[in-house]
């Protein structure tokens, strides 16, 4: 007797349909000697500190693919709104896209409310999105900004938990940076002292953590003013090479040469403006 197959009502949440297919693809790739492309992680040091008039965010600029440096000068401090910026650690694509999505939604929200966006709103949007994806979006963020209620700083973890604190660090170099903060943080610092502290914390990550490196970017947000300093400190300059490695023309051997003339007609091109009224 044929068994009855009940159609399951669609369950909410994540669909794992593609996991089996991915496993098969990975298996066949491994057999033929290839491998799946690895998601690029930023292996980072990011941090933020609240000072008297606002917040200072800091980040290093190295992006790694495994243990090879993929980008020596990438930008990890992302724009959310004119008064809110967000540093991102973890999977590079995830931090980039997540901050862009929330930035876009926050701008729409701000136009709808007619008010300048608040940091708590950005925080709530980010954590609700990350929780919805149950940690599969590998984005560890440091969110900072100044709104009508003053300066605020949040750290947001990939699973969606957040902490509201006066100083936070994230990324593989977070322990090195936090060591500096725990030593020298004081409440209500002046701007210059706060910038020095963040610079030193990121430098600790750069020199003591292999996943972080290159330069230090800072973002100083205070009421009505944002200072996006990139780079604030070129902590590592490339060594100067003494040899000359230029190749003269003709060094690369040409094996065969085939010239194909393309028969092209010359058309006159004109632009007609579209009626957008």
């Amino acid at each position, binding site marked *: 007797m044929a068994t009855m197959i009940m159609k399951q009502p669609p369950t909410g949440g994540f669909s794992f349909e593609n996991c089996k297919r991915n496993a098969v693809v990975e298996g066949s790739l491994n057999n033929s000697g290839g491998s799946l492309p690895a998601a690029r992680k930023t292996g980072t040091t990011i941090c933020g500190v609240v000072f008297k008039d606002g917040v200072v965010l800091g980040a290093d600029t190295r992006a790694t693919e495994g243990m*090879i440096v993929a980008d020596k000068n990438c930008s990890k401090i992302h724009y959310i709104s004119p008064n809110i910026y967000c540093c991102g650690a973890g999977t590079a694509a995830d931090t980039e896209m997540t901050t862009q999505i929330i930035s876009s939604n926050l701008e729409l929200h701000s136009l709808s409310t007619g008010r300048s966006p608040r940091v708590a709103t950005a925080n709530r949007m980010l954590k609700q999105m990350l929780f919805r994806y149950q940690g599969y979006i590998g984005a560890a963020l440091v969110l900072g900004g100044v709104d009508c209620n003053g300066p605020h700083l949040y750290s947001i973890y990939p699973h969606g938990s957040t902490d509201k604190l006066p100083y936070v660090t994230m990324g593989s170099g977070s322990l090195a940076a936090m060591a500096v903060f725990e030593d020298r943080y004081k409440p209500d610092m002046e701007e210059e002292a706060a910038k020095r502290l963040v610079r030193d914390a990121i430098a600790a990550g750069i020199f003591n953590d292999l996943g972080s490196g290159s330069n230090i970017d800072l973002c100083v947000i205070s009421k009505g003013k944002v200072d996006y300093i990139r780079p604030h400190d070129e902590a590592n300059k490339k060594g100067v090479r003494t040899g000359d490695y230029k190749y003269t023309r003709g060094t690369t*051997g040409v094996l065969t040469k085939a010239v194909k003339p393309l028969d092209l007609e010359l058309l006159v091109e004109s632009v007609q403006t579209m009626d957008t009224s």
Partner: protein
Amino acid sequence: MEQPVGAHWHRVRLNTRMISAQSFGDSGKMKEYHYTGPVEQRFSPYAFNGGTVLAVAGEDFAIVASDTRLSEGYSIHSRDSPKCYKLTDTTVIGCSGFHGDCLTLTKIIDARLKMYKHSNNKMMTSGAIAAMLSTILYGRRFFPYYVYNIIGGLDEEGKGAVYSFDPVGSYQRDTYKAGGSASAMLQPLLDNQIGFKNMEGVQHVPLSKDKAVQLVKDVFISAAERDVYTGDALRICVITKEGIDEQTMPLRKD
């Protein structure tokens, strides 16, 4: 990283009913599976401590160079741990990989050098050291020394010699070789600049000592840019018939 622990049966209590995994054993009495005792976490006898080594052989000189960073995972153990070890007045060995095995292996080589000197009344030549190292490494074929070795020195005729090894003792004589974490980045560059590979119409000028040292420095600067395990400082040992000259140059510290 957490390793998965082997599965074991649970005894689960649900309200007043006891559900446990039970089966009937040979004697007819019920056996209950319940794992007690220590659970073995995966222990690895090896660690990867990073580092890059490079050796170049010239007409009457040899160069062995290495960076001085000792790392593990994302941390740095030491910024001043060179990987070149002087064996004789005409031979230097570069060892990278697992630092524990590097230290033990160099101790063993030193002891064997002494034994040879005392029984044969002469110092071992570079070729002899290379052949001996191959047998030492193969002796541990089934629990290898996790070390990538490159020997640089002068042969009996006074010409530069480089011998490169794999962890279990396969070796060959080369003109130039890079080993360690950034070897895949350095070797193609050396193939082009020293071996004149993939170039046409270029004069094959024999490498002079100063040009070779300059090339080694430039090549390590590039390796330190892209490999996180390479950096801090560069130690170069230049071997000529006059002796071994050591130089140190700073590299990126990030």
